[in-house]
């Protein structure tokens, strides 16, 4: 364990205590903010799995969350299927769609995946908005909650458990042999493929897992809000997830978690300025991508390494 990893470890311990005990001291409003932040932790971390670790930019992550939310929501409303089962079905459908898009595009190169996922998310938004018999369009679809009795505390712990599970899966993946091949693909595609790594299969697999995770996150989010609208699969939402990963630090495990909390909490404070906050986040993300591609985590690590050297 080198010094940087050691420090990371120590940051982690108080963090766990904080997440377990803090909610008992929070108001209902801040509890809500924490739940939403955890949703974004799931979204940004799973997007980072494909973007940060394999270098493929998907613009359909919010769309897959929309697939999870609407599949589960419509199953619950029309067929009375319980939320947990609906979410699992939504997750599988998001994963299958991810597999299909990934299979078609990834062999053609990263640009094709970005183009097609952008198209997919626009089309999904158009379908959801227009098929209002089923989805209630922009009015939003009211769906039952995950728990029979509504309590923000239960949702908080549900979201916390699922986020922890996602992070565990992502951590295991990037530390595994597969993770090694992820990074090999990112660093040097030619070298990786000539040393026997099936770069395309690795990328398709990562994309499928990441899409399924977005589906599950979206399903949970929908059953928490109990009102799902075409905003969930919108490009605005996609931008927010991307900005969280970029500002926190792409390709780092902690980065997107940090980004999700920072941006969600910040947006609560600057909400009064209305739509300007999207513009502000856009400018910050642009500055980060241009001058500090490692995000906040990249900057911190640079400092730690400098201090270690001096």
């Amino acid at each position, binding site marked *: 364990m080198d010094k940087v990893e050691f420090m990371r470890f120590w940051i982690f311990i108080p963090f766990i205590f904080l997440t377990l005990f803090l909610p008992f001291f929070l108001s209902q409003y801040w509890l809500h903010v924490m739940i939403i932040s955890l949703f974004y932790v799931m979204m940004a971390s799973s997007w980072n799995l494909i973007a940060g670790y394999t270098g493929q930019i998907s*613009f359909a992550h919010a769309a897959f969350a929309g697939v999870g939310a609407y599949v589960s929501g419509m199953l619950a409303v029309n067929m009375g299927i319980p939320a947990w089962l609906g979410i699992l079905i939504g997750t599988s459908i998001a994963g299958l769609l991810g597999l299909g898009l990934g299979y078609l595009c990834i062999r053609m190169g990263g640009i094709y995946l970005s183009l097609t996922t952008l198209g997919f998310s626009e089309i999904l938004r158009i379908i959801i908005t*227009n098929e209002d018999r089923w989805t209630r369009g922009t009015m939003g679809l009211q769906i039952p909650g995950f728990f029979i009795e509504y309590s923000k505390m239960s949702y908080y712990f549900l979201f916390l458990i699922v986020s922890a599970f996602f992070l565990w899966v992502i951590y295991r993946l990037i530390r595994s042999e597969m993770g090694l091949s992820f990074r090999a693909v990112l660093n040097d595609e030619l070298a990786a493929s000539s040393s026997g790594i099936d770069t395309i299969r690795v990328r398709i697999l990562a994309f499928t897992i990441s899409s399924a995770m977005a589906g599950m996150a979206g399903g949970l989010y929908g059953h928490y809000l109990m009102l799902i609208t075409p905003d969930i699969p919108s490009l605005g939402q996609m931008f927010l997830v991307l900005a969280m990963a*970029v500002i926190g630090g792409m390709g780092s495990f902690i980065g997107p978690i940090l980004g999700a909390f920072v941006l969600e909490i910040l947006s609560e404070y600057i909400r009064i300025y209305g739509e300007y906050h999207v513009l502000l986040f*856009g400018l910050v*993300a642009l500055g980060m991508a241009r001058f500090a591609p490692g995000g906040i985590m990249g900057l911190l690590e640079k400092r730690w390494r400098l201090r270690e050297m001096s």
Partner: protein
Amino acid sequence: MAEFLMYLTNGLVMGVINAISAIGVSLVVGIMRVINFAHGELYIFAGYFSYHLSLTLGLSPILAMPLSVIFVFLMGVLMERFLIRPTYGDEMYSLIITFVLSIILQNSALLIFGPYPNKPPTLISGATSFFGLFHYGNQRLFSFIISIAILLSVFYLIKRTWFGKSVRAISQDREMASLMGIDHLKVNMLSFGLGAALAGAAGVIIAPIFPVTPTGSSAISLTAFVVVVLGGMGSLKGCVVGGLILGILENLGAAYISTMYRHIFGFIILILVLVFRPWGLFGQRT
């Protein structure tokens, strides 16, 4: 029959405008391997520029149109110089940066120009009768003629001039081209500007027919991307053929199947191309 011919003509007019916009994307992909996700926003900005130059400042539309295109060209040049150039060789960051830029421009357009569609004045009024079958707006015919003129000049620029030769050399082999003394930084910057200017040209041509709105920009980018993939990445001929195919299919589809799903036809084509012919109609199979 007359109705069908009218939709077909609409499709042709949209098709050439699609082709102009798509060439703007294809040129940049061919040379720099960069997709500009802010393409639709540049198109929208040009539409708004021409509206404000002609209605707010009172310039003649004949002057306002090229001036708007020049503004957008400058935006493209600045984007390349300060945002894209540092990402050379890193495809991922160029995708992130242009996507973030598209969100920034879209939100700025909402703030600056407001959410309402703005329609610049038309140059010509009236309609021409086609063989006594149907009447067609003169403004649309005029747009069609300008679009053809732009397409011809772009082809001339790429096939016949020094700039075009450098562009083709770089798309074929970047290293070899720079060994031959081509300043690829300058060519990249100019091509990115030209790509933006073509988005702008499409925008100012369409705006008097269909007014532009800030929220319409992603659909515009997507149409251009579908045309580029359909025609084959980097192929200019592909953009023209692909643009016409998409223009005609979308207009016939909107007329006979469903207006709401106009953009879905494009996405279906994109998926079909990826399944059956991923290198596109005129692209090189690698």
